């Protein structure tokens, strides 16, 4: 289906299913229960999952396939965000032009930076991209303040011109980004028993883009172009002696990956019309590197998992405070309750960084292939069990 083989089709269907049913999957706990703290099914976080998913998928096209480790990818995300907010300010509050322009602007920016940086390989390439991104960040936060809003960030305002639909506003409130009248922040709730599921317009728009981005990335992975990129990672010498100039291929991968980042930035600004300079900082670039490696660089689904994992930590673990801990363990005797709270205290709330650092170390030590390898190991565990359980059945099934 979709021009993919059976395995890839299945993967794509799984991703589509995850995106469509995320409002249910992310809210497994009843709203009133103590575990509701772990629910992630609210619009902002779900939007972040898919948007950073797009960012990580794009990064993986460059890093996972060609092995070129860009340490400045956040610059494209930031450039995309700025472009999108400017579109929302100047042209129309409709998100379509914002998303398109942000992708194109980031692509152009990537073409420029890639053209220069790809003259070098290995760590020299990494440092070149880092240098460009840090320059973009430093300038955006200071001397470019008139264009970027500086450290405060670029926002929409009441008196924005909005050439196409500026006349419509005048209610005293800034209009929210919308898709032909459907505001990105619109949500519907569905309450079933103690559960409540939220369906958010912006999330589904972003989700649609992520499914498209994922599908495109499968096509790239399986195409001859993707094969060339893998060949670059494996052995550039041989590739050159095979009559191929690797530069156009790496540059194409770099630009595609930059456009993915721009798309993510554009979507981010469409969900929430703000673009800040710190989106371009090296820590933001480092974050996407960590997402890809944590999830499993070079695999299709890995980066998406990594993105979800890190964003979950950042948004859920940081909100667990001592109060919440006490609530959880309230049923225990006071002594044990206090003991448990004391033990957990350093790892949650303001200590979420510590937990994240530990997880990075544990994953990379025990699962060199990232979370995907963890999944495969669990899968193998089950399939081995299955084989012993109903081996006659398994034998009759045609091999894929």
């Amino acid at each position, binding site marked *: 289906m979709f021009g993919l083989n059976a395995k890839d089709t299945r993967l794509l269907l799984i991703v589509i299913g995850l995106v469509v049913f995320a409002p249910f999957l992310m809210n497994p706990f009843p709203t009133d229960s103590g575990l509701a703290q772990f629910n992630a099914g609210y619009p902002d976080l779900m939007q972040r999952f898919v948007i950073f998913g797009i960012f990580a998928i794009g990064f993986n096209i460059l890093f996972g396939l060609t092995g070129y480790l860009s340490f400045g990818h956040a610059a494209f995300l930031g450039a995309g965000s700025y472009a999108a907010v400017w579109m929302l300010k100047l042209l129309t509050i409709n998100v379509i032009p914002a998303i398109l322009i942000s992708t194109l602007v980031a692509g152009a920016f990537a073409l420029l930076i890639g053209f220069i940086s790809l003259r070098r390989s290995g760590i020299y390439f990494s440092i070149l991209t880092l240098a460009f991104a840090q320059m973009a960040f430093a300038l955006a936060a200071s001397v470019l303040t008139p264009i970027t809003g500086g450290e405060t960030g670029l926002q929409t305002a009441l008196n924005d011109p909005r050439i196409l639909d500026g006349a419509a506003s005048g209610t005293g409130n800034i209009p929210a980004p919308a898709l032909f009248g459907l505001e990105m922040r619109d949500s519907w709730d569905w309450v079933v028993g103690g559960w409540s599921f939220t369906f958010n317009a912006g999330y589904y728009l972003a989700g649609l883009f992520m499914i498209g981005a994922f599908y495109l990335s499968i096509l790239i992975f399986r195409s001859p172009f993707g094969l060339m990129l893998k*060949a670059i990672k494996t052995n550039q010498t041989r590739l050159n002696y095979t009559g191929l*100039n690797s530069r156009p291929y790496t540059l194409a991968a770099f630009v595609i990956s930059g456009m993915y980042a721009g798309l993510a930035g554009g979507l981010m600004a469409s969900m929430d019309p703000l673009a800040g300079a710190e989106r371009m900082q090296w820590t933001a670039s480092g974050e996407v590197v960590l997402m890809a490696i944590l999830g499993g660089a070079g695999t299709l689904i890995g980066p998406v998992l990594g993105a979800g994992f890190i964003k979950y930590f950042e948004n859920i673990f940081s909100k667990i405070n001592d109060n919440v801990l006490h609530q959880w363990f309230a049923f225990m005797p006071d002594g044990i309750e206090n003991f448990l709270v004391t033990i957990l205290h350093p790892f949650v709330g303001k200590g979420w960084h510590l937990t994240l650092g530990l997880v990075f170390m544990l994953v990379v030590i025990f699962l060199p292939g990232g979370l995907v390898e963890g999944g495969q190991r669990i899968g193998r565990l089950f399939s081995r069990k299955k084989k012993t359980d109903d081996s006659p059945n398994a034998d009759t099934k045609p091999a894929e």
Partner: protein
Amino acid sequence: MGILEIKNVGKRFGGLQALSDVNLSVEENTVHAIIGPNGAGKSTLLNCLVGKLIPDTGSVTFQGQSLLGRKPHEINQMGVSRVFQTPEIFGDLTVLENVMIPCFAHRDGAFQMNAIRSVRHQNDIRESADQILTDVNMLEKRNMHAASLSRGDKRRLEMAMCLVQDPKLLLLDEPTAGMARADTNNTIDLLKEIKEKRDITMAIIEHDMHVVFSMAERITVLAQGTPLVEDTPENIKGHPKVREAYLGEAQV
């Protein structure tokens, strides 16, 4: 006029004169071996042919066109393929994919977004890849990871990758280095077979006299960066200068 003409080539690394005044002509459709003791400048010469090094003096022409200043991939596009001393293959990819990549690399060398090309075209490529794998007896290993192949198979794969591009000149850098005698003989047979089936010129840099004398039609002996003598294998064997410079110590 040979297919490959090397004229007055010299190359200097700091204080070391690696090559000086090398003149060499490789005739079309012959197997031409270049031999010489360690440090004679064989590898330097080879690197000057493929664009990895640029000679300080002299000229290198292939089919009348100069090779100097061209990059490796451009030289390859002119019809020159190279086999390395340690096989350079795409270790992370399967054998089939390894052979498909040179198929995609079209002679015009234009960068194409192959992602959007038709599936049918891919099938053609797959067919020619299968054909060449049959030729080198590796069809049954097509789905193996290239890195997991034996050294002999890696060498074979590398040759398949070169041959699938139908090169006019094949440069072989010690193709049997580090091989067991049986493997060496297999390789010689393979090369001979290739030579029979195709119009191809081969230039071999080799240490192993057994290989050289069982295949080469012309031999150039290189010593201290300059050609000592060039002749047929029979004449080389008995050449006193060669014995003195090279065979004397090797005792084949």
